[in-house]
């Protein structure tokens, strides 16, 4: 039910042009900017292993923003825009499940954007993926595990969003932006100063992006030293462990924030902001 509602809100087919801009033009433009920047910095060296590393990391990072902020944005949407959050709260539903359901729609629109970005890269930007060598099992297992992990992280942000009356719309974006730096999305973690790298090692998104790259372009990804000493199975284990850890933390944080929001009377507070 929540997923259906989210889809209606996200797709808003009443204006197909805007939906096309949102779903197609935006991710391609984002990727194109990155490609142009890469081309200038490397003086057009698109044969380097760094190029697919960056391109794939950037493409799959769309999920981080879409799924994570999709879940937390539902709080802002229902509380501020539709003024329905209080009615959801008094209904006999499990609110975290409802919010996760709302994130499903963002996962679908995010998937469209990821697919289009990958297709554009392969067809027009010389991103080389040999489909015969793709480890599909690893790819889909990693993708699903990662999306669940991102949705649970979204729940953590949703909890924080509940307790924040202003600027709540930026929480998701700020977190996604921070993870962009520390997850090795567009550059290997080795580029970061040594003292700050542990932050990246603690982020499940780091291992998720690494495994996605390995499943699609295995050899190229292993050319980078960051996680080269770990096998695919080991990285999958770390990803699973961190996902469980962050999942448990997210549910706990949401419960604490939910109680706090009820104490402070924030469930139905609108700021007109």
């Amino acid at each position: 039910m929540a997923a259906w509602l989210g889809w209606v809100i996200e797709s808003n087919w009443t204006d197909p042009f805007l939906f096309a801009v949102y779903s197609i033009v935006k991710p391609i433009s984002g990727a194109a900017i990155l490609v142009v920047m890469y081309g200038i910095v490397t003086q057009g060296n698109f044969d380097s292993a760094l190029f697919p590393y960056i391109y794939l990391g950037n493409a799959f990072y769309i999920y981080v923003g879409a799924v994570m902020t999709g879940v937390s944005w539902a709080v802002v949407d229902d509380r501020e825009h539709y003024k329905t959050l209080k009615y959801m709260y008094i209904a006999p539903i499990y609110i975290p499940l409802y919010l996760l359901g709302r994130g499903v729609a963002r996962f679908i629109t995010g998937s469209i954007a990821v697919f289009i970005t990958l297709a554009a890269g392969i067809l027009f930007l010389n991103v080389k993926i040999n489909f015969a060598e793709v480890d599909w099992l690893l790819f889909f297992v990693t993708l699903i595990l990662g999306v669940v992990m991102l949705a649970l992280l979204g729940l953590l942000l949703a909890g924080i969003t509940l307790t924040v009356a202003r600027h709540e719309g930026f929480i998701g974006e700020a977190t996604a932006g921070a993870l962009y730096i520390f997850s090795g999305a567009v550059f290997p973690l080795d580029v970061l100063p040594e003292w700050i790298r542990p932050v990246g090692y603690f982020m499940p998104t780091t291992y998720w992006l690494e495994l996605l790259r390995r499943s699609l372009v295995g050899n190229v990804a292993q050319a980078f030293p960051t996680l080269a000493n770990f096998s695919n199975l080991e990285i999958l284990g770390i990803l699973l462990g961190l996902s469980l850890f962050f999942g448990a933390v997210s549910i706990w944080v949401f419960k604490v924030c939910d109680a706090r929001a009820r104490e402070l009377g924030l469930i139905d507070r609108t700021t007109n902001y």
Partner: protein
Amino acid sequence: MSTSLAIETKDLGRIYKLRGSKKETRKELVALQDVNLTVERGELFGLLGPNGAGKTTLIKVLTTLLSPTSGWARVAGADVHAEPDLVRPRINMVSGGESSGYGLLTVRENLWMFSQFYGVPSKEANERIEALLEMVGMKDRIHTKSSDLSTGLRQKMNIVRGFLTDPEVLFLDEPTLGLDVGASRDVRKFIIEWLKADKERTLLLTTHYMVEADELCDRVAIINKGRVLACDTPSALKHRLQKDVLFEIQVSPLNGLNQQMLVDQPEVTKAAITETETGAKLSLGLVEESALARVINLFTQRDVKVMNLNKREPTLEDVFVDLVGRSMAEEESNERS
């Protein structure tokens, strides 16, 4: 539900901590204080008070949206703070004066979605939606996107959303706020019919419209500044005042005459003043009818002209004035200032 009480509160309190500037200490706003209420099953109970009296805060606590800071409350037999999951399947709420809902969804879709959250079978939900929309006179708008509805119709849709799940206890917070006269009448009629259909249904209604409380409610609690000042049937509340003779007088500008001067008159038991475009409207309670002459004499001394004068039966507004010392409108403007 094991108890015959639909709602019970004991010493219920709610204090808001207000955040000022960084240098200021945190201020506290007492929204509810020592509220003790019992509402029987099948009762239509009214909370009457001016804006800011604490009515909405009480509803928020009773619907599990807000934790109390002292005391306790039980709804449908369950503690609203400790057992919200037991309370929620049995209640529903509608807030008036707001246009909530998903504008992209049609009226039917909006209502159907909420019915599914309460586990109403889809076929039954659709039948209820049609029947309820028929009752509020908007069945022809069932396939209209809610963003295309007027504010009044969207409010009616929300009222239907509240009734759709057939709750044991329904909370209506100012349900007719912002509705035109005809729509308000329809809603009041609908509320009465809904309650008549099942004697187990309980409805708690907040309003600052005296007529609404008087017309609808089995019992009324008058609330001001977070405290319940009186609680009884409307007729019993009004009966308290029948020792007084009540007059409503329309006068020209008061020329310095104020409420205190009127109350200081030995024959005047209470006085409320409402400013109007042409002067003022006075609601006076007098110990006996003959005292009117002396009040008129006071007007004459101040060159205040009487434009209209009516003797009338006491209303809940008079009860409020008797309890608070001011009319509800005066109380609201006093709170604002």
